[in-house]
């Protein structure tokens, strides 16, 4: 089904928070203020690696307007945080390990006074040797960044006999791929409001993707009972994984408790850049071999991930990468080994796609190179190696049966964009010439042959011979949930509120993904009620139960499963009340708009039921995300699949790559919220575009060169292709009762390798490093001296009457 306004019909709804967001009325947590509030700010290390010899805060504390100055000595509990391994100091004691490490924090009556106080804090540092790459970290003489050494985590998965299988391969492709340090670049930088109560309790209003996890970590730092802390974590102005870990919360909480006043912190963009998480830069070496028929035999993968100064979720990200380096393909002999290595380069952590984006770029690059070396169509090559419905997962674990891979493969094969691929290289002599030139200059290491396709639709007529077009496609298999071995709880509550609303509460957050709209549609589906009957409570540890994290493409499935568990109990209980009130048997009653109905008539309003008391009308469920029964660390049980095809235009004189059109085929079960689904795929497409073509938080000697969005460039509406089509494949195998899967991540994975394949077709250059360098693609003007071509047209930058 092509997802759009037409196909969605009545399910195309404006998100409940949409109007307030576009009109600026919505109060994000960083918009909140409180009477008597003071401003918090954090002193961070200017050095990527240094010993702290002394911290003197007297002068700062004496500054008028300053109400609190804190250092590590003021942390009552554990001076560490980190979801997986708490190894990051809240406030550094004796050593700083990256340019965002926090050393002190200040609260003051004004932002100016707080800023001035930071300048008055004297920290004596002794600079230490900087480890600015994973390779440097692994060198034998490298200083140890942590007591356990410089390797945070090593993964290894092996089946079959890879070395033996390589000897039987007809074609082997070996390549090393590199991916950038991508930044989440959410519009709302990290911040929040921290309000101490008269009873010694603390209210935290700060974005996170797992309020209960923040509460647990804060309780540990503050040495307070978790129940004395309330974490309100929704709504959020964008997160993409970047706010799942604690960021400013410990400082706001410590300052608020220290001075007994509400504290507001809101980081500048530069603070967000230096202290915030990034996507792990990875170097991925792959050696992959096929037999003469093109069947994959052996696949050897080595992953080196720059995890930065602290652990956070570096280990699970590497685990995920290890699993996804195998992908949706049948490969009998596999050997994957990965290392997440500490460096002084910021902190790498959770980011939409969770390590999958990096390895899928590499894996799909291998598939394209192998197909070309075999002289096979790239998509046909994937077909003969594609997993089947009942195949085990990438790590050999049992998984929910799925034919999603086959469905997305079929959809892409039928796509008009993919058809354009075969219309190209064969009938353009100029391109073939260029191909050959590249191969002879050694930029590609496999033979270039024309594609098998026939004539196809005529290639677009180009105004200039240096403007080339190409089409490429990629497959994605993406795990949902946290994987084997990691607690992945789920749950929710439903009840009739005192006002007579169907009230649902989840410990999840709305960070722009459209959870509110999805919940509204699910509740309308289940209870046939009106939107006005619904009340949704999210992200508040005092008002919503523990639902696990809003991560890992799990939230949609979790709330769907929770509501399906709760629905029979709630409906029955409400109908029983209505039966008592109306005298109509329960079997004749059902929930509907505004109340309980019998036949065509509404017999009791929800409000009337609520007025008689709501006791016994609240239901809660707790369960666990579906997990594989096989004890293979990180192995997933549910997967989504995506195929992406794109057409690009490359200007060989500037090296500029323009993405002209993209089609996504996504198999993720039933579509709950078409606009939200479309938004997730289109948004993921935009992030992948940045990952492929422009984004990289460049560091020099472990210091950020890109300090703001004027140098760290992200795609704007000018860069996004005009045509993005999304095809949703809703079919699930019989007996699959897991419902809709989340699509928060899967749309952000496949575009980069598809662009790389399209660029290969357009230019003859293989891409093994992202973002794609213009300089790698540009050609001297002399290349085109013999082309008899018309001129390029002038760009029209538009009229002044804006």
């Amino acid at each position, binding site marked *: 089904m092509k997802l759009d306004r037409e196909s969605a019909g009545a399910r195309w709804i404006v998100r409940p928070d949409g109007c307030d967001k576009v009109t600026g009325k919505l109060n994000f947590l960083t918009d909140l203020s409180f009477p008597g509030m003071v401003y918090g700010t954090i002193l961070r290390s200017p050095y990527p690696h240094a010993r702290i010899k002394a911290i003197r805060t007297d002068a700062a504390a004496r500054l008028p307007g300053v109400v609190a100055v804190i250092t590590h000595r003021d942390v009552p509990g554990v001076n560490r945080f980190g979801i997986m391994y708490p190894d990051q100091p809240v406030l550094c004691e004796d050593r700083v390990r990256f340019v965002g490490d926090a050393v002190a924090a200040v609260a003051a009556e004004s932002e100016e006074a707080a800023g001035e106080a930071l300048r008055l804090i004297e920290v004596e540092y002794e600079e230490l040797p900087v480890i600015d790459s994973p390779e440097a970290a692994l060198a034998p003489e490298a200083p140890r960044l942590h007591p356990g050494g410089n390797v945070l985590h090593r993964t290894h998965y092996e089946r079959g006999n890879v070395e033996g299988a390589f000897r039987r391969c007809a074609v082997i492709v070996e390549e090393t791929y590199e991916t950038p340090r991508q930044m989440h670049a959410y519009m709302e930088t990290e911040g929040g409001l921290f309000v101490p109560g008269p009873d010694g309790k603390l209210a935290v209003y700060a974005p996170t993707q797992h309020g209960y996890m923040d509460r647990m970590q804060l309780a540990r730092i503050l040495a307070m009972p978790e129940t004395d802390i309330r974490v309100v974590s929704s709504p959020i102005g964008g997160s993409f994984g970047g706010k799942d870990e604690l960021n400013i919360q410990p400082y706001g909480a410590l300052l608020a408790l220290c001075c007994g006043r509400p504290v507001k912190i809101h980081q500048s963009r530069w603070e967000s850049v230096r202290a915030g998480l990034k996507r792990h830069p990875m170097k991925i070496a792959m050696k992959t071999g096929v037999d003469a028929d093109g069947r994959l035999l052996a696949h050897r993968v080595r992953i080196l991930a720059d995890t930065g100064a602290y652990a956070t979720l570096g280990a699970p990200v590497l685990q995920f990468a290890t699993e996804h380096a195998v992908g949706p393909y049948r490969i009998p002999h596999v050997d994957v080994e990965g290392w997440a290595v500490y460096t002084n380069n910021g902190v790498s952590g959770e980011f939409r796609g969770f390590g999958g984006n990096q390895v899928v770029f590499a894996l799909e690059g291998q598939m394209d190179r192998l197909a070309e070396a075999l002289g096979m169509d790239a998509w046909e090559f994937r077909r003969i190696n594609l997993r089947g419905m009942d195949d085990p997962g990438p790590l050999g674990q049992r998984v929910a049966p799925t034919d999603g891979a086959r469905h997305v493969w079929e959809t892409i094969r039928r796509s008009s964009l993919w058809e354009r691929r075969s219309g190209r290289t064969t009938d353009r002599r100029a391109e073939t010439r260029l191909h050959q030139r590249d191969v002879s200059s050694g930029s590609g290491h496999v033979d270039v042959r024309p594609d098998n396709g026939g004539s196809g639709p005529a290639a677009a007529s180009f105004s200039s011979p240096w403007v080339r077009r190409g089409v490429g496609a990629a497959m994605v298999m993406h795990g949902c949930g946290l994987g084997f071995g990691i607690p992945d709880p789920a749950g929710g509550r439903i009840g009739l509120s005192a006002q007579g609303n169907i009230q649902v509460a989840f410990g999840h957050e709305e960070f722009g993904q459209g959870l509110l709209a999805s919940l509204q549609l699910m509740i309308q589906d289940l209870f046939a009620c009106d939107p006005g009957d619904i009340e949704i409570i999210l992200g508040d540890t005092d008002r919503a139960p523990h639902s696990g994290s809003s991560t890992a493409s799990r939230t949609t499935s979790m709330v769907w499963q929770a509501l399906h568990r709760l629905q029979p109990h709630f409906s029955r209980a409400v109908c029983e009340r209505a039966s008592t009130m109306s005298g109509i048997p329960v079997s004749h009653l059902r929930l509907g708009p505004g109340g309980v109905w019998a036949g065509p008539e509404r017999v009791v309003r929800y409000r009337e039921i609520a007025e008689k008391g709501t006791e016994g009308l609240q239901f809660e469920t707790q369960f666990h995300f579906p997990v594989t029964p096989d004890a293979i660390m990180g192995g997933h049980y549910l997967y989504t699949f995506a195929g992406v095809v794109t057409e690009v235009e490359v200007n060989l004189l*500037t090296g500029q790559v323009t993405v002209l059109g993209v089609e996504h085929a996504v198999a993720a079960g039933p579509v709950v919220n078409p606009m939200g689904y479309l938004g997730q795929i289109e948004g993921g497409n935009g992030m992948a575009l940045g990952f492929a073509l422009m984004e990289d938080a460049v560091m020099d000697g472990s210091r950020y060169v890109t300090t703001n969005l004027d*140098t760290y*460039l992200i795609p704007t509406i000018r*860069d996004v292709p005009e045509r993005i089509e999304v095809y949703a494949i809703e079919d699930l195998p019989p007996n699959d009762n897991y419902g809709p899967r989340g699509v928060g991540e899967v749309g952000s994975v496949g575009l980069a390798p598809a662009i790389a394949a399209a660029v290969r077709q357009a230019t003859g250059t293989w891409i093994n490093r992202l973002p794609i360098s213009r*300089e790698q693609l540009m050609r001297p*003007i002399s290349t085109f001296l013999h082309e008899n071509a018309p001129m390029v047209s*002038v760009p029209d*930058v538009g009229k*002044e009457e804006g």
Partner: protein
Amino acid sequence: MIPASFAYERAQSVREAVELLESHQGEAKVLSGGHSLIPLLKLRLTSPTVLVDIGGIAELKGISAEGDRLVVGALTTHAEVAASPEVRRHLPLLAEAARQVGDLQVRNRGTVGGNIAHADPASDLPAVALALDAVITVEGPAGRSEVPVEDFILGPLLTALGGSDVVVSVAFPIPKGKWKGAYEKYPHPASGYAVAGVAAVIGVDDGGTIRDARVGITGVGDMPYRARDVEAALVGNPATEEVVRRAAERADAEGSFSGDLFASEDYRRHLSKVYTRRALMRSLP
């Protein structure tokens, strides 16, 4: 960021502006559109004690044809230049460059005089000014004088302007005979500044031979420059694509190139040729 504090004076005439500048002995800066100065103040890259606002001086506004040149008053905005029928008729490449400056707000507020006086090495207008041999009229304590643009821009953010001087106007000579010109630019995606910007003029005689060629290049290094090597390769040769292609290869023979995160020095050298070629191709008869 917030600028350091400064005093504010509003001049009613050029003479008064010069006197105000003189009285503050180099501690004052001229404010016109503010689109270069205010960012510098906010970044605290400069912190003058006084700003002399010349924005209300009527004589600095407007465009007039004076003989064989167009005189653009210092306070004329880029948008006004881009929309001016006079400019479009006589110097279409100037209109073309003006409508590519920065973004809509910059074009609507930023001024030609301010742009030239600021001498940003990635600014668009200096390339056109160089290609057209523009002349800057400056008023200082000793009166008015005219300075050719090549003697005016001395380096990055550095001009021949004295501490008490005010730019009055920029005069762009209209090339004689049969000619065409063009401005071609690779804009930085965030700032709109030229990563490479090239203004070209080609004049031909009746036999189709190039008798006049000017190429001004901006954005690629410390300061805009005239690509004299390119010009020499064009003059006296037939106005053909082949000649242009070969000439454009010399675009980086002069000029001091430098790189940054967005574009390396090599890439800028390459772009200087690509955009020189583009601008010249469009300047062929």
